[in-house]
């Protein structure tokens, strides 16, 4: 139960890291004048985005390594059990 909520919290954290990438929010209220095109781009913190992606990937990759390790141990146990039964 705790592990599941921790995983969910981690998922929310990852989503939050990506929120700057989502760009402009939805509708503007009626009174505001129509949006003009910005001639220069609003500065985006590229290094922040990059680090967020790299950190997320690092977490995924470490998870894959852990799964692989567990899988190999499982296969070893299975091999031994299959040997025992003759």
């Amino acid at each position, binding site marked *: 139960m705790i592990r599941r909520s921790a995983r969910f919290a981690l998922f929310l954290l990852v989503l939050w890291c990506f929120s700057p990438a989502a760009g402009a929010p939805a509708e503007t209220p009626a009174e505001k004048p129509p949006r003009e095109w910005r001639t220069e781009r609003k500065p985006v913190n590229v290094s922040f*985005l990059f680090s967020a*992606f790299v950190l997320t990937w690092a977490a995924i990759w470490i998870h894959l*390594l852990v799964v692989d390790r567990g899988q190999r141990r499982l296969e070893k146990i*299975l091999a031994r059990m299959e040997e025992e039964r003759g």
Partner: protein
Amino acid sequence: MHGARNRIDRGLILLVGPAMVLNLFLIFYHAPVERTMGLVQKIFYIHVPAAWVAFLAFFVVFAASIAYLASRRASYDRLAEASAAVGVLFCTLVLATGPIWAKPVWGIWWTWDARLTSTLVLWFLYIGYLLLRSYVPDAARRATLSAVLGIVGFLDVPIVYLSIRWWRTQHPSPVFAGGEGSGLDPRMRAAFFYSLAVFTLLFVVLLRLRMRLRAAEGRAEALLDERRRSL
């Protein structure tokens, strides 16, 4: 016996880690920022490779399904299931990144263009495949039924795409200028193809992990069955 294969699997996992980091670096720093769409355009380097990989995955389901019906070897069924599951994962990624890209660029979440809409139908097709498998407890029957669905589903894909494309010509919507492939700078092209390669590698890694899991499940089941029978 399995030692060499395990080493290859481990090697691939070790390889994909830094490979993806390099990919992210190329995407964020090497590839130039697109003039009209800005930084958001870089989702393209994830969205399109994910789509290609999803399509590759579903082709593997198709091939493995045929191979299973021809040979009845359980390993082909495991390949089909694993490929479908990983394919759905990448397909979900395509469907998630599509709207994230569309909203700031075109102002709407969903554009009903032929490719994205066909991907949505594809997603439902293969979710259905996985759902069907969960409803059949007997292993042999499950393998046969899903193999038939795997074949029918994949053959449907081009027809679905063509029919949706025709459907859109009946209802012309504003043409969105600056599609993903319009005029790729050589650095963009390099980043794109490298991303494609890394995503394919990731696909293989995830596929192998899932297949090994299923194989281990099968072995454990067989051992359990023996124990039960001998008691």
